[in-house]
């Protein structure tokens, strides 16, 4: 499989407050030193709790945010590097957003919404109408809907429209940022199936962002688990659910309530301090919640190391001190 996208040591710092002279005083990394690559036709799932930097990472890759450091390569050429976004010649990367109510312009008709990407990519009138017919077929709409406006569609229908708009100009790469999080389960399943079908039919590559492990497992080949802006574990979908290595991944998997009464889960009553104080940013960021904390965890940040075939983890416990395992350089 050939690589389509590569991200190298990508970081993003948002300035939190400004002093009287307009200078930023304090930086928190929303994404820090993230590296990975995606192969053509693959779906990479990105999970992590709210605020861990999933959307920020997605938006940097899409070119909507400029990285603070690191670089992004698409099909071998740089599309973004520190403080700089290269203007794309073709809309190769498209996004599907979480909120189907704010991702469609309320003033436009369905036709206008679907036409927009085509017109920008200079399709002529006939090509436009042919492509719109194709798109309607993909998302199972009839032509009568073309004159309707977004408020006349339900949440699931809007998300379909957003998907049709994203694939309109045949981009090879789609970033889906929590595309099903605000939908009912039955509609969620329809959208997931639509995404799967489109992937097969159009040979798409997805970066699929979600906080729902079940959903990510359903659609992804490979999974990245993020915690506070860092990658803590990355492996094939099966591997990560069968043998999670990082304590956070394990906690995540154990916390998902399973709709099966035979599988009684005893949730942990212990309370964890989920907010990190500014003074605690040294060392492993998971140390406050980690059941296997060691002294070294407070001092040194663990590197992402290999712990199996195509399996990376950033935890001191998984990396014996003799450095037998290799630090992975991408």
């Amino acid at each position, binding site marked *: 499989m050939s690589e389509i996208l590569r991200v190298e040591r990508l970081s993003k710092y948002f300035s939190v407050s400004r002093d009287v002279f307009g200078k930023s005083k304090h930086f928190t990394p929303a994404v820090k030193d993230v590296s990975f690559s995606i192969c053509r036709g693959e779906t990479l799932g990105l999970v992590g709790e709210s605020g861990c930097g999933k959307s920020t990472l997605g*938006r940097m890759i*899409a*070119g*909507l945010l400029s990285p603070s450091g690191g670089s992004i390569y698409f099909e071998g050429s740089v599309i973004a590097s520190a403080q700089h976004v290269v203007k*794309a010649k*073709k*809309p190769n*990367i*498209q*996004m599907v*957003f979480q*909120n189907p109510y*704010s*991702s*469609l*312009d*309320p*003033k436009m008709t369905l036709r206008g919404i679907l036409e*927009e*990407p085509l017109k*920008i*990519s200079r399709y002529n009138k006939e090509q436009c109408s042919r492509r719109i017919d194709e798109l309607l077929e993909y998302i199972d709409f009839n032509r009568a809907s073309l004159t309707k406006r977004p408020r006349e569609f339900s949440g699931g229908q809007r998300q379909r429209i*957003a998907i049709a*708009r*994203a694939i*309109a*100009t045949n981009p090879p790469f789609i970033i889906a940022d929590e595309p099903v999080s605000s939908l009912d389960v039955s509609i969620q399943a329809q959208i997931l199936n639509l995404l799967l079908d489109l992937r097969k039919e159009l040979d798409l590559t997805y970066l699929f962002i979600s906080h729902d492990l079940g959903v990510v497992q359903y659609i992804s080949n490979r999974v990245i688990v993020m915690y506070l802006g860092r990658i803590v574990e990355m492996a094939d979908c099966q591997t990560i659910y069968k043998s999670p290595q990082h304590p956070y991944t394990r906690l995540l998997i154990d916390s998902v309530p399973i709709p099966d009464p035979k599988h009684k889960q005893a949730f942990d009553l212990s309370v964890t301090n989920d907010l990190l104080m500014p003074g605690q940013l040294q060392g492993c960021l998971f140390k406050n919640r980690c059941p296997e904390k060691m002294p070294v965890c407070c001092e040194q940040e663990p590197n992402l190391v290999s712990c199996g075939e195509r399996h990376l983890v950033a935890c001191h416990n998984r990396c014996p001190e003799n450095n037998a395992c290799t630090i992975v350089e991408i």
Partner: protein
Amino acid sequence: MKIIKKLIRQPLSLMGLLIILFWITIAVFAPLIAPPGENQDPYMMIRHSYSTVPTAPSEGIPFGTTEGGYDIFYGIVWGSRTAMIVGLTVVTLASLLGVLIGGIGAYAGGTVDYVTMRVVDLFMSIPFLIAVIVMTVVLGKGLDKIILALVVFSWPDYARVIRSEVLLVKKQEYVLASRLMGGSHLRVFLTHTLPNSIHPMIVLVSVNFGKIILIVAAMSFIGIGTEPGYADWGQILNFARNWISGIPGEPFKYWYTYLYPSLAIFSFVLGWTFLGDSIRDIMDG
């Protein structure tokens, strides 16, 4: 369309609409209602005499004349045109300017936004009425000068309102999606950002319309408005200044000199205010 239906259903806004409609009709059919003399600038009031005292309504002069023999009826009818023209031009130009400056500033963000907002602050810190009066005094009499002064000092209002709206809209995901498709900033601004942030401008425009007319009238009344003889409600009131208290024993002798122009100004402003307030109420839900 829905909004018009709602406007008609409320008594206050219906009244506002009717008043405005009435004045629009008058303005449109002015040449028929009060035909101007031949070879005469229609915007200059017909003069029946050079008498220094007003004359009461009589045959052919339904509202009487002011001092200087100007026909009040003619002035009221053609004055409605003046009011419409001034209001429309000022509101259009000022809102265009405001939308462009405020909208682009907010959309671009960063330094551009900072600079435009400081300019807006600067303008807003000068008291509006005084600024307009000073500027017209400096420029001299004439409708065009009043319009210029009003535009120059009323666009910041629009700029501020559109800015806050654009700041909200530009974060919406449909705007981001359009950028992702490769849409240029100009395209995104014109097709998504502006149409979705223009709503509050409608309220501002209709409220300001009445306000503008009131100010023009006030300026003409104190004698720094239009040229003498121009068909303008404020000016007719200005001519009535010496006659408002009547003569000893007959305080209302010259009632026609001030009643008609005041009624015209009052109803016109009221109409726009009713309409503006109702639109605001409807849009606020």
